[in-house]
């Protein structure tokens, strides 16, 4: 018989095992290379921009405040509750306090890393663009870490039957306090921000733990919130590997029908007919493509460093193709595909044809954006030519090789 105290360590172990299983797919070699390139490009761009800042600028604090607030919003309370807990853990509700303490501490890990990373990245900017010194910047970091703990405590309180308006007020006050605190921090009063945060932590958490035992846990709310949290993570993993029980949504997207005919072709083969519809209507494929197209265009208009743009355009074209790879096997488990008199030799041909068209359209959109943004400069033509080369190499050489390798693996 298991003790209640063993519940959290057991669940945490299983949860971590699951995460490590899926993370190895996320950090596969291709994506890592792509991320290193992207990180390098962004770091280069950042250093170039920093070099332009010689003295504090009025807009420095205004950039820092939203960025630091954003860092505070990273991470949610991971309770690891399951639907059946509502029945099986109901008699042990009074013992859950310790379980949730473990959950809160565990949930701090990722936000702490994120806050430290964001503050770290912002440090050179903060020290150049504002009048803040090292010590006060450190106070801001410590305050943010403390505030994240308060934030998670508030998320825990939301799972109990407090008055909803009361909860809304807490949350509103928390963000107001954080914003004002960060603001006074970046204007050089980091120590004051730290003192106020310490006071809030002591007062808030002591009050919370006084009130919580008298309140009833809203099981359904707690389970729903945890399911939503897990589902966001699973959906992210699902971009890289098939997660059981996770599938994207289907949208009719009638406005994309002209594109559908482009992808499916006029004398379309069955597989091309199927692939084109799955690509444009399933959110897990269509959104990837649309997102890369739109963000690509946006970056082309925002970034005016040609070398960085070259890297980003090529990277986005490669990533689009790479992320769409699971589409190849999308219909493998539908019995109708096996029963219908479809020539299965056309599967790879159809997929390659579709991918070529998809990437060429993205390349064409990028090309138009580049010509508008950079005019007819030499760099525009270099990026356009390099993009076309990447599309052709990806669709004609890499993809057939990759599919062959996958089939051998199967």
């Amino acid at each position, binding site marked *: 018989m298991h003790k209640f105290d063993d519940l959290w360590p057991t669940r945490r172990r299983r949860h971590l095992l699951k995460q490590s299983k899926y993370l190895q797919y996320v950090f596969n070699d291709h994506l890592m290379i792509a991320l290193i390139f992207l990180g390098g490009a962004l770091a280069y761009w950042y250093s170039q921009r920093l070099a332009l800042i010689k003295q504090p600028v009025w807009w420095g604090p205004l950039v820092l405040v939203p960025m630091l607030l954003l860092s505070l919003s990273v991470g949610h309370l991971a309770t690891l509750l399951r639907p059946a807990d509502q029945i099986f853990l109901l008699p042990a509700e009074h013992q859950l306090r310790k379980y949730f303490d473990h959950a809160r501490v565990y949930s701090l890990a990722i936000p702490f890393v994120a806050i430290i990373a964001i503050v770290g990245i912002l440090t050179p900017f903060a020290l150049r663009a504002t009048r803040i010194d090292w010590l006060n910047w450190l106070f801001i970091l410590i305050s943010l870490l403390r505030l994240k703990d308060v934030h998670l405590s508030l998320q825990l309180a939301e799972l109990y039957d407090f008055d909803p308006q009361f909860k809304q007020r807490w949350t509103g006050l928390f963000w107001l306090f954080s914003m004002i605190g960060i603001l006074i921090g970046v204007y050089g009063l980091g120590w004051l921000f730290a003192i106020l945060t310490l006071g809030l932590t002591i007062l808030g958490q002591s009050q919370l733990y006084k009130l919580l035992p008298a309140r009833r846990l809203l099981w359904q709310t707690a389970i729903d919130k945890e399911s939503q949290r897990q589902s966001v993570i699973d959906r992210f993993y699902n971009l890289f590997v098939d997660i059981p029980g996770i599938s994207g949504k*289907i949208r009719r997207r009638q406005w994309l029908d002209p594109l559908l005919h482009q992808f499916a072709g006029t004398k379309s083969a069955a597989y091309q007919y199927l692939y084109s519809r799955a690509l444009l209507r*399933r959110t897990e494929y269509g959104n990837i493509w649309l997102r890369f197209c739109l963000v690509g265009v946006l970056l082309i208009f925002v970034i005016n460093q040609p070398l960085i743009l070259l890297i980003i355009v090529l990277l986005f074209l490669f990533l689009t193709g790479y992320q769409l790879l699971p589409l190849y096997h999308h219909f493998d488990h539908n019995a109708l595909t096996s029963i219908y008199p479809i020539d299965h030799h056309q599967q790879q041909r159809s997929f390659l044809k579709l991918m070529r068209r998809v990437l060429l359209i993205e390349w064409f959109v990028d090309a138009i954006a580049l010509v508008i943004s950079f005019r007819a400069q030499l760099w525009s033509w270099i990026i356009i030519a390099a993009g076309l080369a990447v599309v052709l190499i990806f669709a004609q050489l890499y993809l057939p090789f990759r599919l062959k390798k996958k089939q051998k693996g199967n």
Partner: protein
Amino acid sequence: MSDTDDDKSGLLAKKTRRKFQSEFEMTSADHNSEMFTVRHSKGLLMLKVENLTGGYQHLKILDNVSFEVADGEVVGLIGLNGAGKSTTIKHILGLLRPQSGTIALNDQNLTQDAIHYRQQIAFVPETPILYPELTLKEHLELTIMAYQLDAAVAWEKANELLEIFRLDQMLDWFPIHFSKGMQQKVMIVNAFMTEADLLIIDEPFTGLDPLAVHNLLDLIAAKKAENKSILMTTHVLATAQAQADRFILLNHGQVRAQGTVAELASQFGVEPQNIDQIYLQMARENGDA
């Protein structure tokens, strides 16, 4: 089907097929190794399953199953749950590979020419199989494309079927959001709009409203009149008896008996001549009833 219909049937267009003896004898061993004889009169042999042993990788479900379905014949494949009906169908469809034995459609098997073999079969599954990302219209377009049908003719037929099953106003809908019964109707329309020589229908009446059952029976009769063959599994025996020429009784993965209702009734010593009674008698022999 009358002899006149047989004469008129598509035999002329199918000269290449092996001529099936107008009356043939087929023997098969039942679970007691008792030999029995099946006689029926039809034109061409459509489906021939011979000594089929199979199932899943490490699980043998079918044991030496043999039966035949002739042109224009409606055959009911019946048996208790777990008898091997769906497994037999999966083997015929090529979803499972036989461990031994052969399956031939018009003398052709799946390994010789998979596409041509599959073009001869249309399937209505027990649980509707749909493409979630396709509208009803697109499901039908895909069927036309896969079976290489003449689009104009196929659409004319499809429109009739859609009207019969009251789906004609739903062409732009996603069938994945339909009720189970309506999804079943989509599968029926998909299968019946093809020119396939053999229709395999797995539990066709499940989830259908009485009007749809009536319409389906009419469609089965019409296909029969076109000299198409139908292999149907069902537990709704009395309804199936209205259209089936013969029944094959599967029991623990073996063919326990096959023949017309009269032949089976005499073999099981059952009166009145009713497939329900025959089925119950088989279950009693098993100790299941």
